[in-house]
């Protein structure tokens, strides 16, 4: 049974560019969340989607956006990249919306902005 799949695993972008990160949740999971983990810190909540609707947004600028597709996969988009956006971006899926247990994380996408 496949876990949470994220692509790409690594990428390097230049300041000012745009990036799209992708996530496929565990089959049957309808909730997808995105987290940013900067080196030396814990993951920080960016977005949560459930049934294709945004259910939560963290304290991130409007340069960050996301969406969830009918098959429950999700994209995270970041515009006008800054050096500070360099981080590990984690996607997590869960079966239900309420109840924090049951989050399964993917291995993440390592984004480096130069």
């Amino acid at each position, binding site marked *: 049974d496949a876990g949470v799949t994220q692509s790409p695993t690594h990428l390097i972008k230049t300041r000012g560019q745009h990036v799209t990160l992708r996530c496929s949740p565990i089959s049957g999971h309808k909730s997808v969340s995105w987290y940013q983990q900067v080196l030396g810190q814990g993951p920080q909540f960016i977005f*949560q989607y459930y049934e294709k609707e945004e259910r939560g947004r963290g304290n991130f600028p409007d340069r960050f956006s996301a969406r969830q597709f009918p098959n429950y996969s999700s994209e995270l988009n970041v515009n006008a990249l800054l050096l500070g956006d360099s981080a590990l971006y984690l996607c997590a899926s869960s079966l239900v919306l309420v109840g*924090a247990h049951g989050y399964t994380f993917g291995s993440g996408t390592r984004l480096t902005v130069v």
Partner: protein
Amino acid sequence: DQQVKQNSPSLSVQEGRISILNCDYTNSMFDYFLWYKKYPAEGPTFLISISSIKDKNEDGRFTVFLNKSAKHLSLHIVPSQPGDSAVYFCAASASNRGNEKLTFGTGTRLTIIP
């Protein structure tokens, strides 16, 4: 404002002994607490959780204790094994607000010495 704090960045424990990882929180709305384990190049893996209505939850070698009055929780691992060497994150959510957002601490790197 760090709502979940792990004040020990690192901890070394002899194999076979008890490992105790600590976590403090400030937000009294948190009602669910989780511990995640993270190996390099992998996403966090759910370890154990506890609801605010309990003060202890046990799963094999892992036990989590919650002291609501002190806003403190701890993870006990006994006996510690070399495979337990990883970064451990404490996380909390206010699930009664219908929000599954997890707030993470900064992590504690546990090293088990053979």
